[in-house]
């Protein structure tokens, strides 16, 4: 694991359609909030990590150049990391690696996206290979629907049961987002609203799918010595895991999903977690699609394979349930992709430090955060705890 590392500050923009700011100013908003939360200034930062989606998203290449000032990176080492949807977790891991190696004392990690400025699904299409599969791609909805259909078929989950559980996930995420002042979509929806919403890619409907958001998130990582000196309540990094799979869709089994399963397993091992459902107090999953959220429950060992809909219908993952998931309203209600995985990490840090406001899970001490990227190809998990 290297040396101990803590998160000592987080900052988020108000997410949504942010035509009121240019892209660098959006980034600056998150960075300023994180510095203020950590009680530090730019001078204290030894290095900066940035992550976003591919350049096609906003039409500006290599945005760590564009954001140098907004991230306070002038005169400092800077690196950019991209792993598509899992970018936000990957950059968090890089912040950890940098400090855990002892080469830096304080590192600023920034994730951002301004999706209202481009065509998110066109950008996703360019992630597919140009010769074989891109022709049949239908953005992210196409892939996630294929995966969900395969999963339901494999485990003989009746269509109505899957539909009911997915609708419940949508309702509870939307309810949770009402408690989150940063969330993009803040409206309550009913089971009927979800089940009657416009079909995107059957059986996935509009309210099963995340929005395209503008937003940024910044997180400050610090060494044990510094965290103990300047931060009253640090969130300690207890474990992290990352796994990738083969590139071509269809080559690996997405109903079992090795990368999600193994990334969690590695993080659990480091964090000493044997029974995630018992030991974890809260989880911030990357859930752009309701049906897919259930596959993650199974990969992360929250329930046996094929039983996620039963657990959902019993309310196991709702607020006040056995393991509350996405009290922030999750990716389903806010998705500025390059920032999203880092928002999961920031939300987990807020939870274990008791700073999550109205969305606080009472007494949360151990939290899971997660993100998924590419054509179902990469998964990343980070576990945070209130104690070192």
């Amino acid at each position, binding site marked *: 694991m290297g040396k101990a590392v803590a998160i000592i500050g987080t900052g988020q923009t108000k997410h949504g359609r942010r*035509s*009121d700011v240019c892209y660098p100013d959006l980034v600056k908003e998150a960075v300023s909030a994180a510095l203020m939360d950590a009680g530090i200034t730019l001078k204290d930062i030894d290095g900066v990590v940035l992550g976003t989606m591919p350049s*096609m998203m906003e*039409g500006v290449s290599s945005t760590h150049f564009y954001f140098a000032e907004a991230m306070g990176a002038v005169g400092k080492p800077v690196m950019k990391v991209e792993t598509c949807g899992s970018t936000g977790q990957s950059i968090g891991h890089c912040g950890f690696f940098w400090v855990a190696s002892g080469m830096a004392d304080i590192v600023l990690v920034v994730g951002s996206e301004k999706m209202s400025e481009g*065509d998110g*699904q*066109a950008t996703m*299409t360019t992630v597919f290979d*140009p*010769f*074989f*599969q891109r*022709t*049949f*791609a*239908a*953005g992210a*909805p*196409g892939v996630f*629907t*294929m*995966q969900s*259909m*395969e999963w339901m*078929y494999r485990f003989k989950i009746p269509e109505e049961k899957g539909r009911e559980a997915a609708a419940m996930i949508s309702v509870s995420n939307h309810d949770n987002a009402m408690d989150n002042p940063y969330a993009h979509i803040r409206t309550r929806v009913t089971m009927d609203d979800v089940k009657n919403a416009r*079909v*995107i*890619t*059957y059986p996935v409907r509009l309210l099963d799918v995340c929005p395209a958001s503008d937003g940024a998130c910044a997180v400050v990582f610090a060494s044990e010595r510094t965290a103990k000196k300047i931060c009253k309540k640090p969130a300690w990094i207890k474990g992290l895991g990352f796994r990738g799979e*083969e*590139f*071509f*869709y*269809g*080559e690996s089994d997405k109903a079992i999903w090795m990368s999600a399963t193994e990334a969690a397993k590695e993080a659990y091992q480091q964090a000493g977690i044997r029974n995630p459902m018992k030991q974890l107090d809260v989880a911030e999953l990357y859930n752009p699609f309701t049906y897919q959220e259930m596959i993650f429950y199974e990969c992360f060992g929250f329930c046996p394979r094929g039983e996620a809909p039963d657990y959902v219908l019993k309310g196991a993952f709702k607020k006040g349930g056995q393991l509350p998931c996405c009290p922030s309203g999750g990716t389903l209600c806010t998705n500025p992709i390059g920032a999203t995985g880092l928002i999961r990490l920031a939300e987990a840090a807020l939870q274990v430090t008791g700073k999550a406001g109205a969305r606080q899970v009472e007494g949360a001490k151990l939290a899971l955060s997660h993100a998924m990227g590419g054509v179902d190809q990469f998964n990343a998990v980070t576990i945070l705890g209130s104690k070192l």
Partner: protein
Amino acid sequence: MSKEEYRIVKGQVMVPYELALGRTWSEFYDYLKEEKIMGKKCGKCSRVLVPPRSFCPRCFEDMDEWVEVSQEGVVETWVYVNMPFFAQEIKIPFISAQIRLDGSDTGFIHQVAGIDLSDFDSVRETVKLGGRVKAVWSKEKKGNILDIAYFEPVK
């Protein structure tokens, strides 16, 4: 000046590319012209991969052996696409499907067509997970993936 008055500027980036297929994929498309679907077999793990690869992704061994796979297979999963996406070649509605061709060890992504696609409820009666489909060839071969026009349900 109010927030609503801040200006938005239109922009566009267009970049042409010339992409090399390399030997393995060039040969794959040559075989498609002869209406043969060919995979590559790994000498170590014996898996047959379609699309073929120059090396086995799991064993990291060069794959030298071409194997013809069946033009029929099983639908492992599918999706009915009725929403337009940027630069989409195929007109909506269409069906993307993952098909396990007999004699191969991977899912092959293509489209299922040759049936009335306008009404989703009737499509659901015809296209099934676990159902069998077979390749229908394009008359004119252009050396791309649509040389296989589509897969149609086997009656």
